[in-house]
């Protein structure tokens, strides 16, 4: 084999490998997309194009309620975790190295621990304390497992911080709060934003911890999907997964374009 033909062969091999993995990743998702437009309930036969599963999905109170719960829980959990995490970073930056290391170690526990253990242990604690499981208990658990992500995104920014600028602002007569928002905040903002977004996604994606800490009455999309899938095939869920996939795609493309534009500027 000549050198050139060897190179084309290797490029072909690489292309083939990428294609196979892409097929593996996307064929299942596209199958659901196609089936979501199938008129019949069976998936083995194409009985014509229809939007009835989409209509059924948007008309379904359980799905819409679960969607509402998912989004509000994710929003409030991410917001609370961001505030608590940011305050924690301010506090920890004034601590001695040793106590900070201990706290950071404990902060890692929910990240390293299995979700099922986290979920079960929080659920047991609620019940032992006589707190009945509901929306609030899910929200509390979500805040708990989101805080570590915020701290891990914000803390490195605090370490890079130039402490002199903050002190200079104080010397020039700024109040601590004013100096914080004018001098410190702009530097740590990227960490705060990524902590919030990470928390939001983690909360939306969570199934296991929600599964254990929700009461009988409330569902998020994850727990609803789980309970419906166990019963049988539901074409409304194909419609739902298509909508979610398209939404995720659109949001991520916009985020990518925005961050690319920022880098160029």
């Amino acid at each position, binding site marked *: 084999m000549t050198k050139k033909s060897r190179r084309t062969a290797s490029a072909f091999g690489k292309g083939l490998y990428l294609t196979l993995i892409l097929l593996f990743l996307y064929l299942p998702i596209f199958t659901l997309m196609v089936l979501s437009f199938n008129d019949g309930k069976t998936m083995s036969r194409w009985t014509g194009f229809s939007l009835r599963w989409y209509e059924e999905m948007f008309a379904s109170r359980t799905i819409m309620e679960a969607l509402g719960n998912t989004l509000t829980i994710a929003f409030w959990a991410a917001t609370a975790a961001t505030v608590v995490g940011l305050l924690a970073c301010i506090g920890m930056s*004034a*601590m001695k190295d040793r106590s900070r290391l201990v706290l950071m170690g*404990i902060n890692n526990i929910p990240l390293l621990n299995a979700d099922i253990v986290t979920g079960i242990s929080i659920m047991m*604690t609620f019940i032992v304390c006589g707190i009945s499981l509901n929306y609030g208990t899910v929200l*509390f658990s979500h805040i708990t497992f989101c805080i570590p992500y915020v701290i891990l995104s914000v803390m490195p920014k605090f370490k890079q911080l130039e402490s002199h600028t903050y002190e200079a602002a104080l010397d020039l007569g700024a109040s601590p709060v004013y100096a914080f928002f004018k001098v410190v905040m702009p530097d740590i903002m990227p960490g705060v934003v990524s902590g919030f977004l990470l928390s939001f996604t983690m909360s939306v*994606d969570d199934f296991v911890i929600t599964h254990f800490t929700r009461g009988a009455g409330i569902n998020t999309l994850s727990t609803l999907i789980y309970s419906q899938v166990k019963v049988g095939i539901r074409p409304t869920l194909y419609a739902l997964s298509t909508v979610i996939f398209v939404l995720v795609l659109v949001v991520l493309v916009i985020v990518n374009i925005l961050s690319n534009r920022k880098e160029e500027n």
Partner: protein
Amino acid sequence: MTKSAIKRLFSGPFLAFILCGTLVPLVVIAFYGFTDRSGAFTLDNIMAIAGGHHAQALGLSLALALISTLICLLLAFPLGLILKDSKIGKKGFMVFVFILPMWMNFLLRTMAWQVLLEKNGIINIALKSLGLPLLDIINTPAAVVLGMVYDYLPFMVLPIYNALIKIDHSLIEAAYDLGAGKGLVLRKVLIPLSVPGIVSGITMVFVPSLTTFAISTMLGGGKVNLIGNIIEQEFTVSSNWNLGAGLSLVMMIFIVISMALIEKFDREGEGSMI
């Protein structure tokens, strides 16, 4: 009160959350694990892991988690290498395409495989129309491994890619200049320098695979009982909290052991953790 004392107060809410959301729950689960229904100390819940179907479930979970982690690693490393070498302009897009499924709810992605693998599912319809033998893996451990690999592959790709992309290209060129072949560069430069990524990829796939109950329920059809399924059932079906908590503690021990092993292996292999 000094200024830094006031500042330290800011971590109050955080401390409250770690206390109520992490530390107290761990104490509660440990308490239940080491007591019986009347509250008396016992090791029965821990020792229950040795009993027939519990030990079997743990063994199966460990086996399936190891297999799926290995498959993910074998798929992801070449992928990371190819992505690393792809053209700069295309790179961001390529990585995006391979990570995108991670953002979709994993239950929906698992459901997709349920639809594909069913006895009368899409794959079998296609195979039948081609006159090929049918694929009958739904409700078997093979289907569960497939689901794990599908769900967690991006968790392996991302850290490996991030580690590979950080490798200084001049090191690779230097190795080639000194006469190393492709295989040697891979063995002596690329793999050792990407160990941190490989290690975090392994933990990110192994731990959720070991502890899952959703994938095995959906693709195993109740016939594949993993340790996660047993624990979940102790809480939702049989409501034997003590046994469930005891088995959870055993599972935590396995997670800690595997992390310690990985860390040790990582340190011996080059010590390239930065």
